[in-house]
């Protein structure tokens, strides 16, 4: 395991109290694999990866749990040491994550010389190499970020992330802002690089089809917790948590023409309120009174689910394929 | 609504008036606008206007003080002479006004009523005749009698109400200059050429540093752009005569000046005078100096030479002026006024100007060569002007340099005086009390005060009712407590006035007019005697009198 996230707790202090953005989430990233971290926006997946990078917003703090990278528990000092050299990050919007007043090349050189051991000359050579690696022309090094198209910026961001040859890449919605065709290209770039450089990768996305296309493993998060995880094929073919089922219905399939899209009614809970039991209860067409008392994690062999009715998973799955099921948003509909 | 109320009030007033004035129709004296400078521009005068308005209201008049910016005021008072009632005004003292002619003649002579200084429109043939007569009287005693008569006419008619002759305050640093080496010029004070020539430095500081509130507009012997300009030109360029400390003209660049007859003046020039460039001053130069303004190239000086018919050289160093008509003011108004300029410099300049629309006033590079006791070294119009003593002059000054600093505010003036950045206050724009207290706190500073030739007054528009009536004018003038003016508006730095000839010109001032009695009660009596009535607290015209006005 290159990365283990264990019962991670991230709290934000807000005006209306403490929001538990990540509330005891655990997952692992095996070496050389791509793990998809999936969930609706606001479910804590971005917070989780940012916590790994050690760049929580001012009002956020790690309230519990731990992150272990290659056997070392990450604390402030290790984070500072490992950042970018071992764990790098591909942002959602490369536009806003590149400084608009410097050329892309000089920003590459900056990280290569300031964080790496490169001289300016070798940094320049390495930049060209990196651009080549992600399929950009070396000439574009002298351009400013705004002169790039969206896809090119994303490639540049990937080049930036690969600059110091990290072993783990955290990609936060790397293709969300792009149109579908460019999305494919970037995903392909990521896949080929991952294979060539034998990278491990966490891919944060709300788009389950991206996961299907690229990932080996998937971790489904809801309201700061992991509700289901396992190998992609397994989880997508036989989801065992109603949320995963709903999520799958809500997205078009990148590979096949999808059926009708069915959104999950309602919205994620307010994380600053005290919550107990399964947090999906209010939106779950299959919830039972016991669901709101506590939650359990079941399953083995890597495919785990946090649904109390895990035993009935197959029945529920069938019911979940019917769009009408999701229109009944009221709780305890099946009970 | 407002109109309705006013109409209602009118009806009531009319009713009251009708009962009181059973003899016939009568009309209320309309509301008077007393124009003034804004407080910011001239606080004393504004204060006086407020006090006067208070006193006039006691007569049953409606009075409103209306401050006007200078532009609007001149436009109204000077260029729209039939459109106003009453305004605060002032005449400033200048050395050449030491001769009473200017005030005696131009303020009240009917020929000036249309466009000139008689803007109040006072028309009195008797006055005209006497004013013309005094000009021709070469005998001082005779002329004095006429001057007295003129002052008495004005006292009787009160075409305007004189308020005060202000005292001007000046100061020197007596640690730097010998205090008794300054010369007081009557009606002007210690800021005069005599002081600048005679003042003695005590120590190493031989620069006299004087302030001015205003910028110097020009240093041009053929153009005066403002009062301060003349202080400077005075020192650079000599004149045939100068107004002495006693206010009388005395020969300066001349050994003698004498009347050969009523229209002939003989001048004998002082020998050995030199221009600042070293060339000698000749009779030719002098004649040129009086001919130069006669053309159209120095409009400001032209009026002073129009009386001259001819100038002849009568000897090596002597010349003779022939005048059109007898003119007693010739010495003051012409010989003591025209700057002597070097012909070798100015002749080509004026020739060059001939036929062009420009005049000598607009010359970009004016030659600063004169023959006076100081030479111009440097001039930065908004900051300072620096003159150096002309050691070769026959009346060479004792100071090395004369520096005038432009200091627009009184606050800074005192600050600089304290820090030694000034050592002579020649003009103080602030509250006199502050200067006096300043001198008390700084024993090195000596304050000198002098009553001014100029005066502050309330000008009545004699052209229109109610001010066309002498009794009314008299009453309004009597109603003004002059002592209150002195104490409450001028903080005691002024003396009461009732004449256009300042008491400092003691020879010409008629003491008989000084006993002008004031008081609201007396004023009311004058009005009553003239047939005015007060009804319901408002003043009404005598029977039969009606206001006929051009519109305001």
């Amino acid at each position, binding site marked *: 395991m290159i990365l283990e996230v264990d019962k991670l707790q991230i709290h934000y202090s807000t005006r209306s109290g403490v929001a538990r953005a990540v509330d005891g989430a655990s997952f692992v990233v095996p070496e050389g694999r791509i793990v998809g971290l999936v969930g609706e926006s606001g479910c804590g997946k971005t917070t989780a990866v940012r916590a790994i990078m050690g760049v929580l917003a001012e*009002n956020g703090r790690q309230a519990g749990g731990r992150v272990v990278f290659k056997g070392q528990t990450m604390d402030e000092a290790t984070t500072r040491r490992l950042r970018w050299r071992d764990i790098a990050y591909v942002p959602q919007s490369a536009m806003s994550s590149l400084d608009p007043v410097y050329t892309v090349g000089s920003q590459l050189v900056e990280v290569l010389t300031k964080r790496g051991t490169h001289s300016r000359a070798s940094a320049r050579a390495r930049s060209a190499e990196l651009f080549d690696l992600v399929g950009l022309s070396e000439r574009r090094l002298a351009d400013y970020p705004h002169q790039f198209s969206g896809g090119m910026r994303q490639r540049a961001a990937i080049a930036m992330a690969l600059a110091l040859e990290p072993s783990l890449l955290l990609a936060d919605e790397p293709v969300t802002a792009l149109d579908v065709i460019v999305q494919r290209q970037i995903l392909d770039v990521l896949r080929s690089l991952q294979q060539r450089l034998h990278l491990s990768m966490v891919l944060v996305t709300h788009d389950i089809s991206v996961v299907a296309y690229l990932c080996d493993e998937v971790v489904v998060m809801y309201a700061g917790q992991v509700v289901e995880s396992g190998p992609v094929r397994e989880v997508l073919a036989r989801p065992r948590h109603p949320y995963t089922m709903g999520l799958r219905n809500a997205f078009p399939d990148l590979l096949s023409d999808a059926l009708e899209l069915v959104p999950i009614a309602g919205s994620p809970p307010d994380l600053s309120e005290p919550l107990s039991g399964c947090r999906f209860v209010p939106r779950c067409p299959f919830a039972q009174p016991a669901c709101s008392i506590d939650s359990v994690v079941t399953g083995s062999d890597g495919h785990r689910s946090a649904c109390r009715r895990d035993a009935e998973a197959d029945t529920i799955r069938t019911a979940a394929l019917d769009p009408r099921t999701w229109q009944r948003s009221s709780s305890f509909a099946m009970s | 609504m407002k109109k309705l109320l006013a109409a209602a009030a009118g009806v009531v007033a009319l009713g009251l008036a009708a009962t009181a004035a059973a003899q016939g129709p009568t009309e209320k004296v309309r509301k008077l606008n007393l124009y003034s400078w804004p407080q*910011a521009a001239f606080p004393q005068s504004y*204060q006086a206007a407020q006090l006067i308005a208070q006193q006039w209201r006691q007569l049953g008049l409606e009075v409103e003080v209306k401050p006007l*910016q200078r532009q609007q005021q001149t436009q109204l008072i000077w260029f729209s002479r039939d459109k106003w009632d009453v305004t605060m005004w002032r005449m400033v003292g200048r050395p050449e006004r030491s001769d009473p002619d200017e005030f005696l003649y131009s303020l009240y002579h009917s020929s000036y009523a249309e466009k000139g200084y008689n803007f109040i429109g006072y028309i009195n043939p008797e006055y005209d005749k006497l004013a013309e007569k005094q000009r021709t009287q070469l005998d001082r005693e005779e002329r004095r009698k006429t001057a007295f008569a003129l002052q008495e006419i004005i006292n009787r008619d009160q075409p305007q109400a004189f308020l005060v002759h202000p005292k001007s305050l000046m100061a020197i640093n007596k640690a730097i200059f010998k205090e008794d080496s300054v010369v007081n010029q009557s009606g002007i004070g210690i800021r005069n050429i005599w002081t600048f020539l005679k003042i003695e430095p005590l120590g190493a500081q031989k620069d006299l540093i004087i302030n001015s509130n205003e910028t110097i507009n020009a240093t041009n012997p053929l153009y005066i752009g403002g009062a301060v300009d003349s202080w400077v030109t005075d020192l650079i360029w000599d004149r045939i005569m100068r107004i002495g400390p006693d206010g009388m003209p005395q020969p300066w660049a001349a050994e003698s000046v004498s009347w050969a007859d009523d229209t002939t003046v003989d001048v004998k020039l002082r020998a050995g005078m030199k221009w600042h460039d070293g060339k000698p001053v000749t009779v030719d130069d002098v004649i040129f100096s009086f001919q130069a303004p006669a053309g159209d190239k120095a409009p400001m000086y032209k009026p002073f030479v129009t009386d001259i018919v001819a100038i002849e050289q009568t000897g090596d160093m002597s010349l003779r002026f022939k005048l059109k008509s007898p003119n007693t003011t010739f010495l003051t108004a012409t010989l003591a006024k025209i700057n002597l300029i070097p012909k070798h410099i100015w002749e080509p300049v004026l020739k060059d100007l001939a036929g062009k629309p420009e005049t000598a006033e607009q010359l970009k590079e004016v030659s600063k060569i004169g023959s006076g006791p100081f030479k111009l070294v440097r001039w930065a119009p908004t900051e300072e002007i620096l003159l150096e003593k002309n050691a070769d002059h026959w009346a060479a000054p004792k100071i090395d340099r004369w520096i005038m600093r432009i200091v627009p505010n009184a*606050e800074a003036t005192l*600050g600089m005086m304290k820090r030694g950045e000034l050592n002579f206050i020649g003009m103080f724009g602030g509250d006199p009390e502050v200067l006096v207290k300043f001198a008390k706190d700084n024993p090195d500073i000596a304050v000198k005060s002098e009553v001014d030739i100029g005066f502050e007054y309330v000008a009545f528009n004699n052209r229109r009712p109610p001010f066309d009536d002498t009794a009314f004018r008299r009453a309004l003038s009597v109603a003004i407590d002059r002592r209150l003016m002195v*104490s409450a508006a001028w903080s005691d730095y002024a003396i009461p006035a009732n004449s256009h000839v300042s008491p400092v010109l003691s020879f010409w001032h008629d003491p008989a007019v000084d006993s002008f009695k004031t008081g609201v009660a007396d004023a009311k009596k004058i009005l009553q005697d003239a047939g005015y009535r007060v009804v319901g607290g408002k003043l009404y015209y005598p029977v039969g009198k009606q206001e006929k006005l051009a519109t305001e």
Partner: protein
Amino acid sequence: MAERAEPVPARASWPLLPVLKRMAAMPLKDPFAFAGLVIYLLFVLVAVFADQLAPVDPLEILFTKAGKLAANVPPGVEFPLGTTNLGRDIYAQLVHGTRSALAVGLSAAIIVATVGTIVGLVAGYFGGTADAVLMRIADMALSLPFLPFVIVLTGFLGASTSNIVLAVALLLWPNSARVIRSQVLTLRERAYVEAARVTGASAWRILFVHIAPNILPLSFVYAAIAIGWAIITEASVSFLGFGDSTSVSWGMMLQDAFASQALSRGQYAWFVPPGICIVLVVVAGFFISRGYEEVFMPRLRGR
């Protein structure tokens, strides 16, 4: 945490009331804005009860019992701040000066806000020629040097308070017009405006019923700023001697104090209080406008 809300919830119903409600509630959320409001209220009270607080006419020439001018009386029981060199009660001037300050400030603010809002609404909503013309006029007004223009205008047209207000308003409306215009540009693309358009509401109706209420807080911000500007400008112009002699204002007092050498006399009671009053009123406006900016202008939120 990165979420930035829209300035006003977009809903199809008439937004005026909720906007007003939020505007009224704002000072309670922001302590500075609250302080600003309190300062304003105090000055308004002083202005209203000026005659009771200072029964002496501020322009009256005062005399001592002995009949002498009551000049330069030091602060004491009878005259809390003393008298001027020409015998006016400084305290009375200070109190009555509040009236002219508020009159100048409020009238300028009302004109600026009204003109700025209408121009901004029209230019932003209709676009095209109207927009181009109005914005060019605004540019022109903005390229006039502010204080010099006011000085020239009052110096030559006459030093009345209304001329000063006029000049200030003439120069300040473009700022608010520009910002409001850009706000209108975004608002007019909103769904609820679109909806109103589809239902056939007239342009003016959309403009004044649906868009204008959302602009109100912005107009208010600029009005609060204009109050300060107008008061400072009036003070500066009066200080330079182009003020209205017939009314008492703080600027006038400062001019009088400066010209009458209160500085070298050390008459601090004459020139310090009016300055402090100006600072307080103006800063109150800044506080309030800042408060509204933070609540209603999303770009500035969280600063």
